[in-house]
């Protein structure tokens, strides 16, 4: 195989860029092959939207983990620990604890009472059109926010990891390439293809992380206290590096901001549409439970290893490379740590490990963007086109064809938005996606499952109320305007520094918008009387709790 030959040659030359490039191509080839293979068995709507509901709990657990652990987790959290020490670890914990909400309150009941999309679960006992319109709007908004952040990140990362000269062009080409790939996975492979891409990615990510973790710990004879001590010493911040406060504890506002972020993370995960629809890919509620258990095990051990990667990078990466980590905002911490434990810059081991970790990061990006595109395309086709517009008078074939067109359009829009967005500071978009999910989606889902009196009006109120309050507060927050420039002249907000419309002091709206979402759901419910919704609660309740009559 010519790829293997190129790889060997590149490894001998210690040419990590050629090696990294070849591994990227290998990742693309593997995922494209998987997608073609999966497309042979994708015929019905249930195949396309839910992978035929044929995945086992363990398989889906890997896919959930692959869907959830983005490049922001892999590179971002280890980078945050490498730069800010303990506060990076503090940040990661919300992402894990959140899974208990999904396990205890959402996954199984949703599998029993839904079909393909988040809206299906709500529409079970509500008036179809208003509820589906609201749920699809929030699904697309959350997914596009998340998608934009991933794609802009992909452009920057690939340019960084390949170390190319002409950065602007490479970034644009990467965004177009990643966009084209995700459209391909989703249109050709549907949920089956996307799921297998996510499973492969999760395996690669875990294997790569375990490898680096063991190598780092071996450097300290598996003495964690030693590693922490060296990290604190080399960080130049002493023992403060191992204590909370360097990043989130600076001012009263930043402390409250972190509480707000923590709430959005813990409550948002179980309301992320691309996570919710994964529970439809298994045959029973019991397999959905098993999926979450696997996901918790994988995600938990991953974040534990991130702790070693982050502090390991602070302890072991020195000199020029250390400055590169700071310049990349932390994103290069894991790749450069891999290089350092492999023997350092210029060594064969270093070049190989750096290339492997870069390829893992690339696979991570591909799997996450594919999941997001599929989620929004499904909601547009199944909720907006088939139910709202055609009032259910469509064939499965028409619906799946529409989903594929929707994937093209959404992917195209994401590419067109991501290219200009590179120049803007959009790091807040992932946190905002969690805040919208926690403020708009979770209240509607929980009320629908546990409150008989809940009705169409309440669902519509809670979704729009949570959506508008979270996005609205962010528009008037420092992330959009008024933060000024950092010492290097980089704009810290989204809008040009000449514009300042900020009055809301927090960067994370959750602490205000989550209560608003729940309150709106309550008020909206009380304003309307809906006998139909109340009567159908009996059916929803039995179906959710026992799986009787659940879609197979």
């Amino acid at each position, binding site marked *: 195989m010519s790829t293997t030959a190129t790889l060997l040659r590149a490894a001998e030359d210690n040419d990590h860029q050629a090696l990294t490039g070849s591994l990227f191509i290998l990742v693309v080839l593997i995922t494209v092959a998987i997608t073609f293979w999966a497309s042979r068995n994708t015929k019905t709507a249930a195949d396309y939207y839910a992978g035929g509901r044929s995945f086992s709990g363990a398989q889906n657990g890997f896919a959930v983990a692959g869907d959830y652990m983005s490049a922001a987790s892999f590179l971002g959290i280890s980078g945050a620990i490498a730069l800010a020490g303990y506060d990076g670890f503090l940040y990661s914990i919300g992402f894990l604890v959140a899974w*208990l909400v999904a396990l205890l309150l959402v996954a199984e009941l949703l599998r029993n009472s839904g079909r393909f999309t988040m809206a299906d679960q709500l529409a079970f006992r*509500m008036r*179809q059109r208003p509820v589906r319109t609201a749920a699809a709007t929030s699904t697309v908004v959350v997914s596009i926010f998340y998608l934009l952040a991933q794609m802009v990140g992909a452009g920057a990362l690939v340019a960084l990891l390949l170390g190319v000269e002409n950065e602007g062009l490479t970034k644009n080409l990467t965004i177009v390439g990643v966009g084209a790939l995700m459209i391909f996975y989703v249109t050709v492979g549907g949920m089956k293809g996307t799921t297998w891409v996510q499973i492969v990615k999760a395996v690669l990510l875990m294997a790569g992380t375990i490898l680096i973790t063991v190598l780092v710990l071996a450097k300290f004879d598996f003495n964690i206290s030693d590693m922490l001590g060296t990290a604190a010493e080399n960080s130049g911040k002493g023992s403060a590096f*191992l204590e909370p406060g360097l990043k989130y504890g600076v001012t009263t506002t930043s*402390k409250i901001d972190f*509480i707000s972020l*923590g709430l959005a993370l813990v409550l948002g995960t179980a309301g992320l549409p691309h996570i919710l629809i994964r529970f439809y890919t298994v045959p029973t509620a019991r397999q959905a439970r098993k999926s979450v258990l696997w996901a918790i095990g994988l995600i938990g051990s991953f974040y534990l290893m991130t702790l070693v990667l982050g502090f390991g990078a602070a302890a072991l990466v020195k000199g020029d490379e250390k400055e590169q980590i700071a310049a990349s905002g932390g994103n290069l911490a894991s790749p450069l740590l891999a290089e350092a434990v492999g023997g350092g810059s210029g060594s064969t081991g270093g070049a190989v490990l750096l290339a492997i970790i870069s390829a893992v990061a690339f696979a991570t990006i591909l799997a996450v963007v594919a999941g997001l595109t599929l989620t929004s395309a499904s909601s547009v086709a199944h909720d907006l086109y088939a139910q709202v517009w055609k009032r259910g008078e469509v064939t499965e074939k028409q619906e799946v064809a529409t989903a594929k067109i929707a994937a093209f359009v959404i992917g195209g829009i994401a590419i067109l938005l991501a290219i200009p967005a590179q120049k803007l500071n959009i790091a807040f978009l992932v946190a905002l996606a969690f805040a919208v999910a926690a403020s708009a989606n979770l209240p509607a889902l929980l009320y629908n499952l546990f409150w008989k009196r809940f009705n169409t009006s309440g669902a519509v109120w809670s979704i729009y109320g949570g959506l508008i309050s979270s996005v609205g507060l962010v528009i008037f927050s420092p992330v959009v305007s008024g933060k000024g420039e950092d010492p290097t002249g980089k704009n810290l907000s989204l809008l040009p520094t000449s514009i300042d419309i900020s009055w809301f002091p927090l960067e994370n709206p959750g602490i205000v918008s989550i209560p608003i979402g729940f309150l709106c759901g309550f008020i909206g419910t009380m304003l309307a009387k809906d006998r139909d919704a109340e009567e159908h609660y009996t059916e929803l309740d039995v179906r959710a*709790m026992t799986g009787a*009559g659940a879609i197979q």
Partner: protein
Amino acid sequence: MAERIPPEAHAAYQRIHATDEFAELKRSYLRFVVPLTVAFMTWYLLYVLMSNYAGDFMAHKVAGNINVALIFGLLQFVSTFAIAIWYARFAARRMDPIADRLRAEYDEEIKR
């Protein structure tokens, strides 16, 4: 209109909802998950608040360079894993048998 359900399914759902078994299933589920959800949310918020406002306590070194903050953070992992396993065992022992019986009854009724 909500989703249309055939009349025999409607009747089966109504009947099952009124049984003592279903009430028992729902009660044992809520009695388990509600207090536990409140507990782990409080436990997590306590951790976040302590990290924000109890710096001296969190900075206290326990062994070598391992301080209270690190142990507190690792305990969040332990509690998350433990609650997940505890719930799975509870659900398999107390909920699944009832759910299976009721689902079988439903399937039986619908076939007729």
